């Protein structure tokens, strides 16, 4: 069971009541998780866990100390406070200290449905057994993860702020592989409402991809027109948003720094159809109502009509620059400023190109250009005359994310949908398929 709002408030108040320091902030995180993993057409691991931890940050004369524990007993909370205060006393002055937040007003953003309580081990085992049976019919090897999590987060400050929020997420990823290992398909979807996660459809999508990805043909590496499915976009594009930070740009160590100590803020840096923003109230990807620093989250345009509209400021940098701290991003939404096109239509409108199911093992290569390397995986197909012709062997890419969204390179923006990163983590995402005119593949991969 998650910590309720009244319980969270009581714990925070108890801790703040013990604090003698000049300023303090308590953060509480309570979570429940269940999972079932399957592979090689059998169950592998499954389990349930719950944890609650509190982190305390205190400042004594602007000197900071921080400690965290998952022991909520009276004596442990006293120890937590004493440890944080002891650390603050012997720490140097925190030059970036700002008084903790006073009372803020937060909106209710939704997205909590208590998924871990609703999904029983028996119903989950049955659903996955059905998925395995479907794979077996097509002589495929299936692997995947069913994962449900509920979280409650709270924070409170000595200056009177209190925040509480609950969120749920349930996801299923499935990989289907042919017995001979010459084809593989993958599909991942998540939702905050278990009723809206169609587990059989997810498995069917992975199975269909595997069946159509069998016996891929080699193709020379080079620059190709690509259609990135929404999953592939989810794997790559969020890597852009973390770099839209004002401080690193102004310090000259970011892709958004400009010569002479300037930044790219206000420049039309991307194709004019690109809108990239965060909206905590979005119906499909409701996000936390507060940023990591406790600022009430609001709709935040990062890129509007291709122009960099926001380079994000945390509280400290905002104060240094006499600006308001940025109320986001807390999720990431990419839309077209013009009418979006369905994936089917994008394919139909492509004379020659590659359809990319997903990317894998993406790592930075050059922060100056936001160039990343990685590989295609679990489905890559050649398109000719508006039709999928045949599967293609996987490629390694070296590609600038900035370049692929720039004018003259970005061709089409599709219809966005709720997606998650295949490598895990990150913000809630609502992203479209994209057609890119030139995407750089540098070598072939034998991997299937």
């Amino acid at each position, binding site marked *: 069971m998650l910590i309720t709002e009244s319980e969270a408030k009581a714990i925070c108040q108890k801790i703040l009541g013990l604090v003698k320091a000049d300023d303090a902030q308590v953060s509480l995180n309570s979570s429940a998780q269940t999972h*079932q993993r399957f*592979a090689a*057409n*059998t*169950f*592998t*691991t*499954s*389990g349930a*866990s*719950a*944890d609650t931890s509190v*982190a305390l940050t205190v400042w004594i004369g602007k000197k*900071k*100390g*921080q*400690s*965290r*524990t*998952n*022991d909520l*007993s009276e*004596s*442990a909370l006293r120890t937590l406070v*004493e*440890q944080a205060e*002891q*650390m603050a006393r012997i*720490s*140097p002055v925190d030059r*970036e200290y700002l008084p903790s937040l006073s009372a803020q007003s937060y909106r209710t953003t939704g997205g909590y449905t208590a998924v871990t309580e609703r999904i029983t*081990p028996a119903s989950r085992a*049955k659903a996955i057994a059905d998925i395995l049976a479907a794979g077996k019919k097509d002589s495929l090897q299936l*692997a*995947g*993860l069913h*994962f449900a999590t509920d979280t409650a987060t709270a924070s409170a400050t000595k200056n009177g702020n209190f925040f509480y929020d609950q969120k749920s997420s349930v996801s299923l*990823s499935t*990989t289907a*592989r042919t017995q001979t290992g010459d084809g593989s398909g*993958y599909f991942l979807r998540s939702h905050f409402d278990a009723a809206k996660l169609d587990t059989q459809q997810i498995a069917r999508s992975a199975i269909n991809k595997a069946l159509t990805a069998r016996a891929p043909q080699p193709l020379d590496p080079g620059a190709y027109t690509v259609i990135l499915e929404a999953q592939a976009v989810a794997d790559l594009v969020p890597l852009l948003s973390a770099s839209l930070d004002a401080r690193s740009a102004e310090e*000259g160590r970011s892709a958004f720094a400009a*010569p*002479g*100590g300037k930044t790219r803020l206000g420049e039309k840096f991307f194709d004019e159809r690109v809108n990239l923003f965060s909206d905590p109230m979005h119906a499909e990807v409701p996000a936390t109502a507060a940023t990591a620093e406790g600022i009430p989250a609001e709709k935040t345009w990062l890129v509007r009509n291709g122009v960099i509209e926001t380079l994000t400021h945390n509280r400290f940098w905002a104060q240094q620059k006499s600006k308001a701290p940025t109320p986001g991003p807390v999720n990431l939404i990419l839309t077209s400023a013009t009418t979006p096109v369905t994936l089917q239509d994008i394919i139909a409108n492509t004379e020659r190109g590659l359809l990319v199911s997903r990317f894998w*093992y993406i*790592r930075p290569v*050059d*922060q100056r250009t936001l*160039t990343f*390397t990685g*590989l295609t995986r679990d489905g890559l197909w050649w398109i000719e005359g508006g039709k999928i012709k045949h599967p293609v062997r*996987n490629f*390694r890419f070296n590609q600038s994310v900035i370049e692929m969204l720039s004018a003259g390179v970005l061709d089409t923006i599709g219809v966005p949908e709720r997606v998650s990163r295949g490598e895990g983590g990150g913000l809630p995402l609502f992203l479209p398929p994209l057609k890119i005119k030139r995407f750089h593949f*540098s070598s*072939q*991969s*034998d*991997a*299937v």
Partner: protein
Amino acid sequence: MTHSRRDFLFSTTAATSALALPTWMRHAQAEEAPPADRAAIADAAMVAARKAGATYADIRINRYRNEAISTRERQVQNVSRNYSFGFGVRVLYKGAWGFAASRIVTPQEARRVTQQAAEIARANAQFQPRPVRLAPAAKVVTSWRSAFEQDPFDAPLDDKIQFLLKLNERALAVKGVRFVNSQLSFVNEQKYFASTDGSRIEQNLIRSWPTFTVTAVDQAKGDFQTRNSLPSGRGMGLEYLDKYPWLEEAEAAGHEAVEKLKAKTIASGKYDLVLAPSHLFLTIHESVGHSTELDRALGWEADYAGTSFLTPDKTGKFQFGSKHVNFYADRTTPHGLATVGYDDEGVPGQRWDIVKNGVFVDWQTTRELAPLIGRKTSYGCLHADSWDSVPFPRMPNVSLAAAQDAVSMDDLIADVKDGILMFGRGTYSIDQQRYNFQFGSQTCYEIKNGKRGAMVREAVYQSRTPDFWAACDGVGGAATFELGGTFSDGKGQPGQVSAVSHGCPAARFRQINVLNTARE
């Protein structure tokens, strides 16, 4: 004999004088609550498991401490200590697993959580297509401590802060250096394991890792270059801060970051590579460590980390590399990050060959994996990153053996006409079957006619694992051998991290494809 939690804490963290502890630590230990008896909790769980019909069960009652200090230039950005305590129970019922975990460490909760794990296992058993069988493991009742001299959690905070600020100062003293970010990370795992086999094992492990990044900026051109610290984390205590020349490393990093701003860009093409251990360890990790995990080869990681180009039928036959290539797995490596007394199902740490004279000979196994390839015992590769994580197969320290002869790095360079010398881990990526990879470095130098030349930049190499190791025509001697590694190797679903080391000498590779990342 039973041990209370308080006894456990004192026996493990305060083997030295309690007077050496800072006030907060003495207080934290004196006030630990609840004073649970781990043996009684373990007994309660094991009895509950048997009562539920389990054929096997185990419990891990673990306490984790983490300390992280981060600085930039002349200021401390953050100091934090995390503490996490709890237990996780695995239950095997009619060949199906169930797992449950809780932070409330009492016998009553252990019974409830064990029943919860048994309920999950029962639900799975109805549909479990292939029942799980475990290789036997000997009953072990013992305690073990990693080879650290000084517990970093006992050391004054100010000393650790000053260590970082001095590093920063040394790098900032180099003309052209504009930023330095540095961190100190310490981890302490206090683990108690019990199983229905009768094992009762206490372990206390410490890991330490100072890291930093130096940045030089050419603001007029809008260019910047970084140089990260080269040494990896170690299974050592605070003594690691004294046993490595960190200040010299910071100064070198400063000079090299500035030099990178002016270095010429690499011309793409085939080059002979000489790779220093500070770089090569990561290539070993990705191409050898992960490809020889048996769970991957059997498809258990197909949905996330991937499978492997190796399959069980290739054991003892597959030509993995040249005759110079000998890899061994070793969970006893001194100061190795994956060095343990026992794994998370009570199997002792051990050493075995993975690749011998270039031929792939063996796998990384657990009690569940070993029988699947006809093995009678496990090599002890089960691990969980927390009390609330399900243990699953994780990599031991996998290392490249040094040459018997005293081959130096200069000897390796001397036989290269047109090549590249690389230090430090840079960009890295490998496909899901561990074939195609791309690696970059922190610093990179030309080799011309047997001599190290000028610094170059924007160089990465791409290869295919068996081709790359087949191209190895020389490895350095023991004097060039170093231990690299990482604190956070990701794998599994839900995702877990583990710490692992890879020892290696310098090594040479012929005619490897090198790309210019600014152009291709």
